[in-house]
Each structure stands twice: as C-alpha cells, then as structure tokens.
C-alpha cells in the first residue's frame, strides 16, 4: 500500500512536469525521452518548491496538500486540452535513421544499470551516513512540522552535524512521499531518491541528442549509466545525483539559449538553475555561474539582448529562490560556512591548490570509479576540436572550468582535514561535473570528421519541441 501511494506521488510529479512543459511549449511535440526525462525533472523541482512554499505558509506536506496540487494540475491539464495547448508525444517511424536499430544494445545496458540501481536502493533502508544524518533527518523534520514557525531542529546546534542550513529540495520531495504514504517509511521513500537519481540519464541523453544522432547519444548515456560512481551514489538517498540532474538541465538550456536565443530555453535554464540552487549549496554557486555565462555570451549578440536575457535569468532565479534565501538567512552556520570563509581567508589558503589540483586530476584517472570516461572525453575533444568554434561549447567549457575552480577553492578553505575530506568527497563532487563532461564529449563528437563549413550541422535531429503546426 505504501509503495502504491509512493508511485501515485511520483505520477503526480510527472503530471506537474508535463503541465509545466505544456505551458512553456504550448501545442508542441515531445519525444518519449522528453516525456520520461524532462517532464519528471521539471515536475520534481516544481513539486519540491511548491511543498516548500506551502510549508512556509504553515502547511506541512500532507495528503491534503498533495490533493490540492493534484486537483490544480488536473484542472490545468483539462483547460489546456480544451484549448489544444497540450504537448503531444511524437512517435513516428519516419524519424528513425539508418543504424538506429543498434540502439537496442546501449539501451539494454542503460536499462540494466538503472534497474540494478533501483532494485538495490529499494532493498534497504537509508544506510549512507549523509543520507540519514542530513537528508533523511531533514525529511523527517519537514514531514512532521511546517516551516512557518521554524522547527526547533533548525536552531539546535547539537544537530549541527546534519548541516542545518543545507537546501531542502530532496528532503521536501521525500517528505512529500511520506505524506502520500501516510507514514515515515524510509525504505519505500527511497523510491523518490532513486527516481531523481536515474533521471540524470534521460536528461543527459536529451542534451546529447541535441547535437548527436540517436545511437551515439545512447552509447554515451549508457556509459553514464554504467559508471561505477553511479552505482556508488545512485539510490543511496543523498542529494548529489539530484543536483547533477538539475544541473544537467540548467547547462543544457543555458547552452541552447546561447545558441538559439529562444525564450523557452531561457525559462527552462532559469527553472533548472533555481532547482539546483534549492538542492545543494553548490547549486547556488552553479546557478550564479550560469547567469554570468549567459550575460557574458549574450554580450556577443548585442548588448540589449545580453541585458534582457541575463536580467530575466537573474530575476527569475531570484523570484523562485527568494523565499529560500530569505528564510535560510537566519539559520546558524556552524563549522562549514564556505561563503564567509572564501571571502575572508581564501588568500591565505591558496597555496593548498598545489595539493588539491593534482589530487583532482589523479581522481579522474581512478578507473574503478570512472572507467575510462575522462580519457574518452579528452579524446573526443581532440577529435572534435572544431567544436571550439561553437559559442555554446565554449560556454560549457567556461562553466566546467568555473565549476572545478569553485570546488578547488572550497577545498582550500575547508575546516576539515583536507586529505581526509578529499578522500571522502572528491568522487562525489566530480560527479556533479559529469553532465558537463559528457555533454562536451558528445558535442565535440558531433564535430568529428565534419568539414569546417558544415561543422556541427549534420550530426543529428534537433529534439527541440516544435510547434505542431510547423511540423506539418
């Protein structure tokens, strides 16, 4: 019964996402992967924020709150259906290209990997330290009390180990599952965690399909699904893979905005950046980097466009995360206050970089964690060097560089023992960069063997949702 309730909750998340996508891309055509990847990702982020806002108003996650969200979602779907504005799923045999039949191989590998992650996740309760001490604990608190009168937990320094100021996306989504089930069952509740984790694969596939044909995109997605680090962190109940998943969406749509300047892409870039910022503190920094890159590259399209796009991005980001930023401001920051430490003592700790950077580089050569993925990415960059001519590829390189630099600087000022901390966290932090690395591998691959004039133009179909009218 609990499992059924949890599945219904996930279905609601999918419906919320589908509704939002239909609002953003009215009357558009969606691929199946957009339906099972992009829609649920948007739905999950939206549900997390909705539950947070409701909790701020005094309503802890409950079946009533979920029922209201469900009714509003269904009503919106009905209205859009009447106005013929719903996104439609596109499945046409004519879209298939030569060689796509081989897709069954990477597809089987991907599904096998993901099924294994799901089965293992659901066969045990929360066991990872961070999973129960940080994320699971917060989920219990949020399921139990609304945020309107800040629960005592958030000011209890004896629970400082659970990082009182960490963002609440994953805890709220888990608390929503507890509300749906009517009980705190962390083993069944892991379904939410594993749902968020495996969404990374279709999100990355979508980004790859933007520039690659189906088969190479599926092969790179299979590589992601089979990474040992995915098995290590998939379904354990931590927020690292959800952050990577939302970050994948944000950088994909930042890149698309830079390439095409379509407002739908900017809206999705804002949504995913806001979701990432509400998932982990790293996400806030990554969201700001997205905005800076949008501004920087926008300047190349004319100052007005840059100003409007960047202003819209920052305004949207602030509007969505303002409540969190304001509410979170009063929480105690004990032990780890990286923002303050970076501002106050970075200069004195910079020499640590000579240990940190080599350690990060060595980690990429850990075959038992990453396989040969980093080497493959390097090879693709060399073979597809022409992709450097693409602004969106350059933008992603800059984002990846900033991302890695920010983590290196955080390591510089950490209050923990650096050697111990790096050995415990470096694979998890590099996991956040995986979407950018695989996108770069794929987008460089798209330029392999192309002539200079046609570089990148013949690689694949675009999976952008197209207006139905334009398709005929």
């Amino acid at each position, binding site marked *: 019964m609990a499992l059924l309730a949890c599945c219904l909750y996930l279905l609601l998340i999918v419906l919320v996402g589908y509704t939002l996508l239909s609002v953003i891309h009215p009357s558009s055509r969606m691929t199946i992967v957009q339906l099972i990847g992009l829609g649920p990702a948007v739905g999950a982020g939206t549900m997390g924020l909705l539950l947070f806002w409701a909790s701020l108003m005094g309503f802890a996650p409950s079946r009533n709150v979920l029922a209201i969200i469900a009714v509003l979602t269904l009503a919106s779907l009905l209205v859009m259906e009447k106005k013929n504005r719903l996104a439609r799923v596109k499945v046409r045999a004519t879209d298939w290209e030569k060689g796509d039949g081989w897709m069954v191989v990477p597809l089987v590998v991907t599904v096998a990997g993901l099924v294994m992650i799901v089965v293992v996740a659901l066969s*045990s309760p929360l066991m990872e330290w961070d999973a129960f001490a940080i994320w699971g604990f917060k989920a219990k608190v949020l399921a139990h009390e609304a945020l309107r009168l800040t629960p005592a937990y958030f000011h209890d320094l004896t629970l400082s*180990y659970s990082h009182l100021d960490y963002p609440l996306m994953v805890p709220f989504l888990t608390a929503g599952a507890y509300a749906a089930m009517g009980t705190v069952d962390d083993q069944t509740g892991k379904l939410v965690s594993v749902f968020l984790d495996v969404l990374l694969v279709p999100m990355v596939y979508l980004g790859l399909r933007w520039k690659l044909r189906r088969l190479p995109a599926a092969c790179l997605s299979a590589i992601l699904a089979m990474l040992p680090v995915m098995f290590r962190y998939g379904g354990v109940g931590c927020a690292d893979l959800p952050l990577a998943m939302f970050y994948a969406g944000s950088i994909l749509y930042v890149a698309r905005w830079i390439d095409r300047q379509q407002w739908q892409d900017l809206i999705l870039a804002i949504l995913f950046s806001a979701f990432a910022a509400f998932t982990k503190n790293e996400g806030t920094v990554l969201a700001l980097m997205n905005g800076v890159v949008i501004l920087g590259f926008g300047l190349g399209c004319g100052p007005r466009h840059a100003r409007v796009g960047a202003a819209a991005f920052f305004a949207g980001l602030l509007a969505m995360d303002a409540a969190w930023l304001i509410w979170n401001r009063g929480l105690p920051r004990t032990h780890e206050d990286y923002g303050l430490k970076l501002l106050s003592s970075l200069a004195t700790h910079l020499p640590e970089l000579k240990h940190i950077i080599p350690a990060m580089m060595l980690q990429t050569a850990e*075959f038992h964690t990453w396989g*040969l993925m980093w080497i493959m990415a390097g*090879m693709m960059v060399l073979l*597809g060097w022409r992709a450097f*001519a693409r602004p969106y590829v350059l933008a992603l390189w800059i984002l990846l560089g900033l991302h890695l630099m920010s983590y290196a600087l955080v390591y510089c000022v950490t209050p923990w023992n650096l050697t111990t901390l790096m050995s415990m966290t470096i694979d998890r932090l590099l996991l956040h960069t995986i979407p950018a690395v695989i996108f770069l591998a794929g987008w460089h691959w798209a330029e*392999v063997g192309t002539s200079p004039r046609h570089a990148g133009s013949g690689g694949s179909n675009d999976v952008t949702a197209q207006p139905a009218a334009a398709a005929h």
Partner: protein
Amino acid sequence: MSRVRRPSSSLNSGKLETILNQLIPADGRSFRYAAWGVVLLVLVHLCWLQLRPESELHQICAVATQSTARRAAMMQHEQFDRIAGQAGDGNVLLKLAGYAKTNPAVENSLGYFYFRTSYALYPRRVYAAPADQVINNGRDIMRIGFSPGPQWLQEHDVRSVLIFGNDTAGGETPRLEILPPRDGQAGMQTNKSGGN
C-alpha cells in the same frame, strides 16, 4: 583593388570563425571511426568493470541480498534502531561511560551512534549536549561530556538513558536504561535492554 571579404553576420551565426577551422584539413571518416572506437572501448571496459567480483555492482548486490555482507552492514543499523525503538515515549539522554569518555578510538562509532539514534528517534530527541553546544562529530560529544541533573532531565522529558561505552557494571556498548516514572525522586536504574 578589391576589398577584403569579411564574414557576414549570417555566416557567423551559431559559430565562430577561427584559425583552426580554416587551415587544418582532416580525414573525416577515420576520425569518426576513431571516435566510435573510443566510445565502444569505454563502454565495454565499464561493463567489464561491473562484471568483476570486486565491482561496485557486486558489492551492492551482496549488501542488497541476504548475504553475510548484508547482515554485517545491517546489523549495526538494526541494533541502533532497535534500541531507539525500545526507548518508548519521551526523550533520551546519551551518556558516555568508561573508555568512551576519553578514548579517541571510539569517536567515529560514537558519532555514528548519535547520528543514527537521533534520526531513528525523531521527533523524540537524543540529548548529548545543551542546545547551544555545537556537535559535528563524536569528538565534540566527548569534549562536552554532558551530564545533566535530575531537574534538567525532568524539564526535558527525558525518560531513558542510552549508555555508550563500558561501565562498572561490566556492560558493553551500547545499551538502554529506562528511567523510573518520576515521583519527585531522581534516578536512572531499572530495565536494562538493547545492546550486546
């Protein structure tokens, strides 16, 4: 004299003209084969990595199935959760005894015990320090050495004590002691349960 031809804005839309893509010819087909070769090699290598007995996949499968590894991994969780379940209503005091008060070797297991029981018991509380003391790890709990009086226990609705470490009674870590119902007397000795 003809003017130098500059790329038009439409030509440049979507990509930058660089010195690289003007000058270097390439055999496209061999590059494409090379790219495919690299990707397939990586995919096969990853599959092979997961098929090895010591792979992440095998390890988590061992934990997920009814194996010795699973029992070992689950035993500690189940033990701590069971102790927390026996605490009944009311809050719990975490008390260190014997070597656990000073031995740095137990910092890690003490921290784990506190984190796990705090999680399992919520919304009831495990008190290991006054609310204004920061606890980030087991060392903090040992440093604080919290030992409140009966009045404090009563005010905070503490009805049982979790003892971590050995004591004069020869008990081993961890175990639970239920406090007697309060009738004006302080004390913490009756039912002993949990632990091993």
